[in-house]
């Protein structure tokens, strides 16, 4: 029997949606290129925004909506933002009922009333519900435990090659079975992409894991679907200078200062992320080192509030934040753009294909995401996405038939990579990362963007004409990393072209040749590939 719903990606978005689809009675499977919990969601520390008012009594859903819209700078869909913020309370109730171990306050008078909340940048109230500084990790693992209870089927180590689309309708997907070294086809009445963002393209200048390169977004582009707002990439103001390891925003939320080498504070630490990142980048451009100062919080409080940061600073920078300044730089952290979806989360241009989470552009974050809204987005929309896709699947009454040509084409593609003369993909990956950070980063301009586009196109051609040195079929990590770079290089020109086309500055997109916001650009940047 065909699957009703094939979910690609096993982070918070994928697992939440699988749980909801299963509840509805859908036949569902979750495919992942790693193992189920090896996902970006585990890295989210700060929290999940829900206007519970547990600490700030006067917080409200309206205030949450307002903050989100202000931060999006005209590029969100107000209706979608309202939907997400209005779903927030039932979302946190659901997570509470699954057993997510949130931090608590004392003497509350209801279950969700006891969840501790803190203030993150750009928020008007203490709104982010958290679990120490492991919010994403604990949420993800609790979802995974719940998926085990529900009997969700996971298929591990399958790398998405392409979505199979015939006459504009998604019918399944092609995968590279990493363990067995074979191309596989999985047929399904509907597909949900939950494949994550693309900030990992900024290799060496990103908080993201290796391989976070927008696999799903690139496959939508190849399948003829639309992607949008790719120029909007959020740079996290505070990553460790040497290793790009994230220092959570909660370090500033709890009262940490940003200081330059002269010891002066130069920016409001809790301003929106884009402003803070630009201010830091400005200092660094001037040749001044920038530091995060949390010494005044005291060792005991630091270990209580930021235990991960304490350990990471010691390991990667060799410093003790209780006694020393933390050297930092801003790095790529979150991608606002992605697969363009309608209000039913169906991908623009591909019928039967849906998207949720960071890979999707559901027009929530617009030009700049608020901390705490991404964890909310992946869970708050899970039910809606599951419903849309299952309803669509039920409307398909015939068996799925897929032509053999897709598999043949995929096999030829893999054979070519294994046969062609090898290149050093790791060097190319690092080159791409540096180029993107320097020319398509925090501060951009037309000339360097055009130049970057040329260089990226050249890298793209070079990669297509070369292969890898590891010729093994099974467990070929070199091959997977080639495929990831192939996707990164499919998306990089889309990011740069979008940034070039947007001749203004708005949110995370800052053009020094067009430093102000222009009403002409209060619109989305759509990109799709035309068949040649």
């Amino acid at each position, binding site marked *: 029997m065909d699957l009703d719903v094939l979910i690609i990606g096993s982070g918070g978005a994928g697992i939440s949606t699988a749980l909801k689809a299963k509840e509805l009675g859908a036949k569902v499977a979750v495919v992942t290129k790693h193992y*189920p919990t090896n*996902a970006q969601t*585990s890295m989210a520390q700060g929290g999940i925004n829900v206007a519970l008012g547990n600490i700030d009594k006067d917080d409200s859903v309206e205030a949450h909506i307002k903050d989100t819209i202000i931060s999006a700078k005209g590029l969100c869909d107000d209706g979608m933002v309202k939907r997400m913020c209005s779903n927030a309370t039932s979302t946190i109730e659901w997570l509470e009922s699954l057993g997510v171990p949130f931090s*608590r306050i004392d003497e509350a008078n209801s279950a969700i009333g006891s969840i501790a909340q803190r203030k993150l940048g750009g928020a008007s109230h203490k709104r982010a519900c958290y679990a120490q500084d492991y919010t994403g990790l604990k949420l993800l693992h609790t979802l995974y435990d719940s998926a*085990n209870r529900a009997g969700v089927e996971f298929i591990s180590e399958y790398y998405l090659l392409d979505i199979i689309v015939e006459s504009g309708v998604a019918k399944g997907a092609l995968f590279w079975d990493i363990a067995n070294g074979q191309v596989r086809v999985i047929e399904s009445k509907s597909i949900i992409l939950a494949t994550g963002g693309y900030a990992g393209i900024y290799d060496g200048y990103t908080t993201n*894991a290796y391989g976070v390169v927008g696999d799903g977004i690139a496959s939508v582009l190849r399948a003829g679907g639309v992607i949008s707002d790719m120029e909007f990439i959020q740079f996290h103001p505070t990553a460790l200078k040497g290793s790009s390891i994230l220092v959570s925003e909660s370090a500033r939320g709890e009262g940490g200062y940003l200081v330059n080498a002269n010891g002066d504070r130069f920016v409001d630490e809790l301003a929106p992320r884009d402003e803070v990142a630009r201010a830091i980048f400005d200092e660094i451009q001037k040749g001044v080192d920038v530091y995060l100062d949390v010494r005044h919080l005291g060792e005991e409080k630091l270990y209580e509030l930021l235990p991960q940061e304490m350990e990471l600073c010691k*390991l990667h920078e060799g410093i003790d934040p209780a006694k020393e300044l933390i050297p930092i730089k801003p790095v790529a952290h979150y991608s606002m753009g992605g697969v363009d979806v309608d209000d039913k989360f169906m991908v623009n241009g591909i019928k039967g294909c849906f998207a949720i989470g960071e890979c999707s552009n559901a027009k929530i974050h617009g030009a700049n995401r608020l901390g705490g809204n991404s964890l909310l987005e992946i869970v708050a929309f899970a039910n809606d996405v599951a419903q849309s896709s299952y309803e669509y699947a039920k409307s398909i009454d015939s068996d799925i038939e897929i032509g053999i040509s897709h598999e043949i084409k995929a096999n030829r593609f893999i054979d070519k990579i294994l046969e062609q003369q090898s290149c*050093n993909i790791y060097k190319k990956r690092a080159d791409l990362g540096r180029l993107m950070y320097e020319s398509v980063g925090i501060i951009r301009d037309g000339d360097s963007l055009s130049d970057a586009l040329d260089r990226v196109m050249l890298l793209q051609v070079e990669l297509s004409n070369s292969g890898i040195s590891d010729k093994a079929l*099974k467990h070929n990590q*070199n091959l997977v990393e080639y495929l990831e770079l192939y996707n990164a290089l499919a998306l990089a020109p889309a990011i740069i072209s979008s940034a070039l086309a947007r001749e203004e500055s708005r949110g995370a997109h800052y053009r020094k040749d067009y430093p102000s916001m222009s009403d002409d650009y209060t619109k989305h940047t759509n990109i799709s590939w035309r068949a040649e």
Partner: protein
Amino acid sequence: MKISIKRDKKVVEFSIDRAVTLLQALYEIKEESDASLTFASGCKSAVCGACAVRVNGKEVLACSYKIVDGDFIEPLNYHRVLRDLKVDKSEPKDKLLISNSYLHNYNQVTLNSKDEKLVERQSDCILCDSCYSACPVLAINPDFLGPFALSRAYRYVADKREGDDKSIIDDIQSNGIWDCTLCGECSAVCPKGIDPKMDITMLRSKSAQYGYIDPNFSTQNFSMPSFGFDPNSGF
């Protein structure tokens, strides 16, 4: 400095010129000298659980370990080695299905900061399998549930929202808590400071409350000694 890596049946030596994390060293080898070296990794910051290996016989996360001259790197124990340092984690993960470690029956209670602490450490688990690799019981009994599945079981037993902790307790009796020798190797290697040994001890006392007894103890057939305790005597 030199590090050696176990690859299938061979041991291969590599030179690294800087004191970097093991994960950085592995990628340096992949980039500079041998692109076929195979290992798992992800977040680089000790939360995704992908990169655990053994260094000089001790489990570490490659992303959180700084290499020193002479280090010997090998894949995790009690996992099928897939290639070089990459192992199959599906079998150990399936033990979570046997231990049924999830919230069975949600009990809507209002928690406080003390309740939070009851499961704070246990829920830091990243499923890196370090504890599983360090557990000597698995060398003798491959069906043993292992430390992380039992710690996770305790994480739900200790959660006041669990309205049916007995179901979890029932499922961890066979090849579970009583097979553990309380050697503490698991607790010693956990990169998150979780103490499965303590959690297993707690699960044993919870089991006793539900009338379970240590099968090793009962097979020795002790008779109940008389303490001559008078419940009415007062203190």
